[in-house]
């Protein structure tokens, strides 16, 4: 029974997502271990999808259901995760709670050492877990070593037989974290969930999942860590914060991790701990702002070339951020022409070779990479300078610019990197991002 409890506790699943044989299913439902709930309910003058919380009338479709022989609604908002229909119930586990194995030994297998700043954050996390604090915001700069900060707190939660989830809006972050967590917690069950992982029916004590996967959970986790809470799509799609809130248990602890918290979070003034210094102890590179009178669609401006040729370390790789996919491709030919001995590529969200190109750049097989904001966060390149072309474009908001600047200087072997924002009119975002970085450096004791 505990195996069923582990599989289904805290989950909200459709009949075929349960992956149970008919006899198993009948048995569990008859014994009230699994209870159906209506998947689409009436909500004022519209409806509500109980999985994703959607109440927008135009996001419900009508279907002439052959099973019911009548027209009824289905939810179009979360259809990618399996169709929720009026006639298909969602199942909740109403049996005994799962019991995670007791840990006789220290679950943390990571032997590294935390910097003082990381240690402070880690202590705050431990305190939050011990006192069942509802929320904690960890405002940690890019490159501060956010993952390692979490380890001690997670180890504590494991010994308390708690259920832990770390969620990130991006699948590649989950893919990257899985092996690191498996190494850090060798005796604990861990599962990594993201669209296409094929592991959606698996359950473990530590769940690493993309935010969309949280739609399948209900009062499941004692400790929920939300990474990059300010990133797309979490901040743009209301069903995701809805899912995160619902996925946590009654007295769970929620931890937010970000370098760039948005106003809506800051307004609520959650308990916060700052980690203003990077794990290698060097300050964040401060971006330079350069004005150009005209931004040509196919030629990079003169001030870019001046900056490029005046760089202190000319052998460093270069990341060039553009506002649109089109621009990323349009600037490439002029770069190739002027720098014939350099390997220059462009990458963007719709690029089928995206993952490969990022890998090549990481392995230093590409010298200059033109990219859109797709690489603004979550990626670590050992030694780069960064240029943003048309930094005044609306796609470069404060958070984006801070994150982009955070791509430089991440390695202890090359902790400085030059960052330039090239624009044809300084925006608030440009001004505020530079101020924010300067402030973080000040907090860290650099002046």
């Amino acid at each position, binding site marked *: 029974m505990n195996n069923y409890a582990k599989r289904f506790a805290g989950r909200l699943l459709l009949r075929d997502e349960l992956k149970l044989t008919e006899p198993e299913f009948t048995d569990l439902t008859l014994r009230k271990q699994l209870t159906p709930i209506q998947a689409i309910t009436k909500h004022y003058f519209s409806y509500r999808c109980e999985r994703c919380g959607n109440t927008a009338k135009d996001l419900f*479709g*009508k*279907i*002439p*259901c*052959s*099973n019911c022989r009548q027209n009824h609604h*289905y939810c*179009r908002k979360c*259809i*990618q995760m399996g*169709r929720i*229909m009026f006639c298909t119930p969602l199942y909740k586990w109403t049996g005994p709670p799962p019991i995670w194995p007791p840990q006789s030994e220290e679950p943390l297998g990571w032997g590294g050492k935390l910097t003082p700043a990381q240690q402070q954050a880690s202590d705050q996390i431990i305190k939050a877990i011990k006192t069942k604090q509802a929320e904690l915001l960890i405002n940690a700069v890019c490159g501060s070593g956010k993952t390692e900060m979490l380890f001690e707190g997670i180890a504590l939660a494991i010994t308390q037989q708690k259920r832990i989830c770390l969620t990130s809006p991006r699948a590649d972050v989950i893919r990257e974290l899985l092996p690191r967590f498996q190494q850090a917690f060798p005796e604990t069950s861990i599962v990594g969930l993201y669209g296409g992982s094929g592991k959606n029916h698996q359950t473990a004590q530590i769940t690493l999942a993309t935010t969309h996967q949280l739609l399948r959970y209900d009062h499941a986790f004692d400790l929920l860590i939300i990474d990059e809470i300010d990133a797309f799509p979490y901040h743009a799609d209301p069903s995701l914060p809805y899912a995160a809130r619902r996925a946590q248990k009654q007295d769970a602890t929620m931890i937010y991790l970000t370098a760039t918290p948005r106003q809506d979070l800051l307004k609520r003034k959650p308990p916060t701990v700052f980690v203003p210094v990077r794990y290698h102890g060097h300050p964040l590179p401060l971006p330079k702002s350069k004005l150009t009178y005209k931004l040509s669609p196919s030629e990079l401006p003169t001030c870019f070339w001046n900056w490029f040729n005046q760089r202190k370390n000319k052998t460093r790789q270069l990341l060039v951020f553009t506002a649109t996919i089109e621009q990323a491709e349009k600037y490439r030919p002029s770069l190739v022409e002027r720098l014939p001995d350099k390997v220059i590529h462009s990458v963007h969200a719709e690029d089928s070779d995206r993952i490969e190109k990022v890998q090549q750049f990481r392995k230093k097989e590409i010298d200059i990479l033109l990219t859109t904001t797709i690489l603004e966060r979550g990626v670590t390149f050992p030694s780069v300078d960064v240029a943003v072309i048309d930094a005044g474009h609306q796609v470069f908001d404060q958070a984006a610019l801070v994150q982009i600047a955070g791509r430089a200087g991440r390695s202890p072997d090359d902790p400085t990197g030059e960052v330039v924002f090239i624009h044809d009119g300084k925006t608030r975002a440009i001004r505020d991002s530079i101020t924010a970085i300067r402030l973080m450096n000040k907090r860290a004791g650099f002046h």
Partner: protein
Amino acid sequence: MLLKNRAVYRYNDFLKTLISQFKYRGDYALVHCFKQDFTQAFKQAFPTIDKKTKLVPIPLSTERLSARAFNQAEALASLLPYQQLPLLKRIEGEKQAKKNRQARLTSKNPFELTKRCEPEPVIIIDDIYTTGATIHHAAHVLKRNGYQKIASFTLAR
């Protein structure tokens, strides 16, 4: 044997994704996206059609119909202003989409007639025409039961 087969769209990557969402994810509402093109292309393909023409949608197995909750061919057929006649049903559940070209062309006829009627001109409706094997089988069953004016119309080819 077949009078003619006509399709509305070329089955490219974009259409593949769209039809996949419609059929496999079960997003019924997408059928309305096709209405204009489907009805217009139908008029162009069959300009002198007999008013008594009946539409015969390719049927799904009971299992698939239950899971999907609708028949995509029926959904498409209902976009047209002609009466539907469910003349065919499947004998066994053999998933056509999982067969390769060879297997499709040599497989047994999966259809049989549901009811005996006075033969009228018919147009078989389906979503995708790949090798034509499905439609060929369907037309064969109709033909040997007295139907002579048979054409087919699909969303994609």
